[in-house]
């Protein structure tokens, strides 16, 4: 048997490896191994729960805010306290700021080099630095959007990377009025920039697909990760697209509702299987079992579980997307298309919240809390998908048990499934490569 190893995986956060096993002229197996674990679920035990949102943001330096806020919600549950309107909206705005930064980073810095520079380009040139050189206008959009997102998180959370303001019952301080005004003044332009960027991004994706059809007679959409899975994501007000707060909806590969549940019911729906060759467990739908109950989360899944967007420009782009691919999309290469639509949505929603004076009011930002024995689950949509934090506390308010299902974790089995599918479709090439 011979192996093709792809290591390290690049233009991602985190340590991973892909192993393709070839034997007797066939692809035998493909493994996607995640190579790092730090054990947050263990070492938050014993810590005062109000410190946990501050500790767990360090799970991910890109989507720290999502971890910070999912933990805040879970600790609210443990201590039985609810943020007032201002605290709720400041947290929500913080979340959107992070979504804007992360989606801009993910699309323009991590993914776009494949579309703009091209998958066949010299790997040494296939990066964001080259995009900034070859397409300065797009480079500028990428930087401006990221800066806007990071500035929102700093104004609401106190720090752009690892925000600090989230506490049980709300946030520790309101948004400074000057900061609010300054951000609001930029918001409209940012919506425009996100929209322009989305159109340019969608065009680049289309061109890449077209080029492959012409040059290599290869349908990339069908070849790379067209897999049938369930899809999961938050929805609110019926089945409207939601980033921050709502109930979780799961649809089957055809888009029919499979189930919907409240955050504190997640254990009835989801289980995880430990895998001998990877530090990330494989989640699945309990009722369906493993591996048939594999599902996806993230921008593509969120557009699959919702029936409409919250805001106008995003709705317009969403309708085009549905016209092109249908109501439930099982491709993988469309995920970045969905991501740029969501980037517009996040900018529009942030603008809406920046207009609201309640985020600047001192006595609206938190409710007093008392540490107590409790149990709480917090769910938000992190940029890369549904994020679940679950804690139990003792009577001193110290964490006794912790369980986290992180956005990319939900996707890991589907990523592996997509890799296996693609390896089968490209078997001849891979066998040659392995020999």
């Amino acid at each position: 048997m011979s192996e093709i190893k792809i290591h390290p995986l690049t233009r991602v956060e985190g340590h991973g490896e892909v192993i393709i096993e070839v034997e007797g002229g066939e692809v035998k197996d493909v493994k996607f191994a995640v190579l790092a674990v730090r054990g947050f679920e263990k070492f938050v035990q014993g810590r005062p729960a109000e410190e946990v949102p501050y500790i767990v943001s360090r799970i991910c330096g890109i989507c720290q805010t999502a971890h910070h806020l999912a933990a805040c919600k879970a600790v609210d549950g443990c201590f039985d306290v609810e943020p007032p309107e201002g605290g709720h909206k400041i947290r929500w705005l913080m979340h959107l700021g992070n979504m804007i930064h992360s989606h801009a980073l993910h699309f323009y810095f991590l993914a776009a080099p494949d579309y703009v520079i091209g998958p066949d380009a010299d790997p040494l040139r296939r990066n964001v630095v080259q995009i900034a050189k070859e397409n300065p206008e797009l480079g500028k959009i990428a930087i401006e959007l990221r800066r806007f997102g990071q500035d929102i998180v700093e104004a609401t959370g106190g720090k752009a990377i690892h925000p600090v303001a989230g506490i049980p019952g709300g946030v520790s301080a309101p948004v400074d009025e000057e900061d609010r005004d300054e951000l609001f003044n930029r918001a409209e332009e940012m919506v425009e920039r996100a929209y322009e960027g989305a159109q340019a991004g969608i065009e680049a994706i289309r061109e890449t697909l077209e080029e492959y059809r012409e040059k290599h007679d290869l349908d990339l959409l069908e070849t790379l990760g067209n897999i049938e899975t369930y899809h999961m994501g938050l929805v609110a007000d019926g089945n409207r697209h939601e980033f921050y707060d709502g109930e979780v909806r799961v649809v089957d590969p055809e888009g029919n509702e499979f189930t919907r549940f409240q955050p504190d019911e997640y254990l009835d729906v989801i289980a995880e299987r430990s895998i001998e060759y990877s530090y990330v467990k494989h989640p699945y739908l309990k009722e369906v079992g493993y591996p048939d109950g594999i599902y996806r989360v993230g921008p593509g899944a969120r557009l699959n579980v919702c029936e409409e967007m919250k805001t106008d420009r995003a709705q317009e782009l969403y309708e085009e997307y549905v016209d092109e691919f249908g109501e439930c999309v099982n491709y993988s290469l469309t995920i970045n298309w969905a991501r740029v639509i969501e980037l517009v949505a996040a900018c529009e929603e942030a603008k809406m919240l920046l207009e609201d004076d309640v985020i600047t009011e001192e006595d609206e930002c938190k409710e007093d809390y008392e540490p107590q024995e409790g149990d709480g689950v917090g769910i938000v949509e992190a940029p890369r998908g549904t994020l679940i934090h679950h804690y139990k506390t003792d009577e001193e308010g110290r964490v006794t048990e912790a369980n986290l299902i992180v956005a990319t974790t939900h996707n890991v089995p589907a990523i592996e499934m997509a890799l296996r599918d693609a390896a089968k479709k490209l078997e001849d090439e891979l066998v040659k490569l392995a020999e």
Partner: protein
Amino acid sequence: MGKATVATAQLSSCVGCHVSLLDLHERLLDLLEDAIDLQYCYVVLDQKEIPEEIDVALIEGSIRNEEDLEVAEELREAAEVVVAVGTCACFGGVHGLANLYDREELLKWVYEESHSTDDEGEVPSEVVPKLFEYVRPLGEVIDVDYMVPGCPPKPDAIAEIVTALLEDREPELPRTNLCEECPREKEDKPIEEIKFRTGQGRPDPDKCLLEQGYPCLGPATRAGCEAACPSRGLPCRGCNGPTEEAVDQGAAFLDALASVSFEADVDVEELLEGLVDLPGRLYMFSLASSILKGHRDVIGGK
């Protein structure tokens, strides 16, 4: 002078230090245009091999597993100058708290016992790099030439170290404690009681949080974040790690408490009770580099 060749790496950490580097925005593009030749940086570049020779290695993260150690040693071999970027590389970071627990116990919780884990799987043992018994800061396994702590360090601090190396001068980095940059006023009065938990109550906006009875680690923590937490009414949790002079952040904090409260009639036991979680409070970010290091048996918090 030609450009300096640079490699970056992330060991066990969150990649936040790399994101902070990206938060230089246009200035990063200018640096890349004029001054540095980025040759290896898995987060944004596709290069998969660490170059054999480079001028500067910027390393984020601590030593948690065998792969961390291999990458650190390979970069030390290749680089003229090694910079430990961020609190994980400098002091072990927040996951140094895992040193309070037995490694097998930790793996058992994550892969067998936690709520959503089913009964079919087992602790991973193939392909994945083995975890060491303890988390260690970078400086414990290779020689480190400069340290830029912070969780993450401000983009300016990262730009400063790179620029200083290019200009062949000593970098100007924060060295004092957090109180020096905190806008709150100290009255230098004895600390009699820690009576609030983080975020509780309505602290006076202008006065020292420690003196108001909040568990603020500012006196024992290095400056560099513009006192982000105290500025928003929250006690410092120590994420920049200890100051340059202090060997041990927790000991430095107890020392600071004792020095202002020495002559007052303070019940020390009661004072420490208010900290609720002693090892977590004193060493949230620096347990791996403290004098306690991995001695779980002597740490009361287990």
